[in-house]
């Protein structure tokens, strides 16, 4: 293992161990020692989040752990980001994410944002309690390819269908892929309202987003 690979491995482990001081320290070493920032994000931080996602799916990590892993990732990201070389700033696929109108529960939405950001997407987070038309207007404005809609409550889940109905009415349905998720949502519900995909958790959402855009899905 080269020194650079060692640092990547250590970054990945520190994300998994929720150690934000260590990820920051390691990120600084990456820069000081002249290694590539982008590679450290990709092979270190993103790898650590992916491993955290696996533990989350396996029921070893839960929401508190996943948020702490993300904090560790973001601390190092702040150090590394300014050092990404211009030519490496590849255009990332963009997605809009928000919680439907009437619902201010945004833990699930935030987890999906974290995991898809770590998975290589540029995520525009339009917050919680978002009216159906705003999803569409912002998606157009931001040139997004995917609209991700979340809700926790059975009492507001019908607002998801409204976003898709409005896309149809506005003749924009084929411009965007629509992903839905949240406590009461199921694949059957996603199918019924005409969404392009449903994922049952944040780790799965990354794979779904990639596959909807025809990107390579790891593992």
């Amino acid at each position: 293992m080269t020194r650079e690979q060692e640092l990547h491995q250590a970054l990945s482990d520190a994300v998994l161990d929720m150690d934000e001081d260590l990820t920051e320290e390691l990120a600084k070493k990456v820069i000081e020692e002249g290694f590539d920032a982008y590679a450290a994000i990709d092979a270190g931080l993103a790898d650590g989040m992916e491993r955290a996602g696996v533990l989350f799916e396996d029921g070893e990590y839960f929401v508190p752990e996943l948020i702490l892993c993300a904090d560790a990732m973001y601390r190092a990201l702040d150090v590394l980001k300014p050092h990404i070389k211009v030519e490496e700033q590849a255009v990332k696929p963009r997605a809009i994410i928000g919680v439907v109108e009437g619902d201010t529960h945004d833990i699930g939405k935030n987890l999906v944002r974290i995991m898809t950001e770590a998975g290589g997407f540029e995520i525009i987070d339009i917050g919680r309690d978002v009216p159906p038309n705003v999803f569409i207007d912002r998606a157009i404005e931001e040139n997004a390819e995917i609209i991700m809609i979340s809700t926790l409550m059975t009492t507001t889940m019908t607002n998801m269908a409204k976003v898709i109905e409005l896309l149809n009415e506005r003749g924009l349905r084929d411009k965007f892929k629509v992903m839905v998720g949240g406590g009461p949502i199921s694949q059957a519900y996603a199918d019924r309202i005409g969404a392009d995909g449903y994922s049952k958790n944040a780790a799965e959402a990354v794979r779904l987003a990639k596959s909807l855009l025809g990107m390579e899905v790891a593992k």
Partner: protein
Amino acid sequence: MTNDLYTPKERLLRKLRGESADRAPVICPGGMLNSAIVEVMEHTGHVLPDGHTDAELMALLAKDIAELTGFENYGVPFCMTVEAEALGSIIDLGSLVCEPKINKERFASVSEALIELPETAGDNPRVAVTASAIHMLSGGDMPVIGSITGPISTAASLVDPMTFLKELRKDKDNAHKVLTAITDWLISYALVLRESGADIICIADPTATGEILGPRFFEEYAVTYINKLADGIRATGTPVIVHICGQLSSVSQHVSEIKSDAISTDAMVNLRNLKSKYPELTTMGNLSTIRLEQGNPEGVIRNTDILLRYGIDILAPACGLGTATPLKNIAAFTQRAKLGIGS
């Protein structure tokens, strides 16, 4: 129904005491387990959001709901924001179709929340509205349920929820201090509702799920503080229903540790299995609210029959009713439930 042996209140209280009754009651407690549907409100003109801040309107709406849906209880309030507002978060009261919601949590972290919370609930205007509505509803044959938000969800409505959840792990001392203070306040709130005439208190704590917290924190925080709250209420002789959201698979060993007079669960939980595993539990639930909102009366009746066959002690929706739920589906549920087994 004239042959009923018990009044709705007697029947529900008997079930909560673990005694037999002529059949299972069918109820909807309010609070998180929302019962205020648009069709009822449009029919009578007693509407939300006005009813959240007007005691008389709140009481009238509770009566409308019982009368039109057939649920055998009165249940108030119609939201989960009374506690958070009384403790200082900013609330949006919503609309006819949207329930009230938290606009801005008061604190950014649990350490910021280590301030003196008001010791008693009584003086707060929204507490007073709920208490006064309960007073107007009490004293008859219908059981009056005061619905309150559990300690974990109240904490996550006062402290930014993402920060709160990670601080359960990272800042345990302060998380426990804040939860202790919140639980003490919730006990005082529940006792105000009890003194106003509530026959039963229902605690719903949707943030306290196995999926969110995992088994370790579910035990360390959810079980601890829900039990502290339930103990504080039950010590006065008032029965307590606890509603747990989500899957129970990762935390099922802890469910029997929750001190309640009935456990209510989400639709994905197989209550028959829970009953056979813990025969001493009084089970409540769990007709799918998705079925109620999007299905038809025939489907609702089929699901009701399953619950009756399982011998579920108290029939109720599995979650809050979507505000667009058709009245005919709810009526199909309550009418079928009242026929009991053998129908």
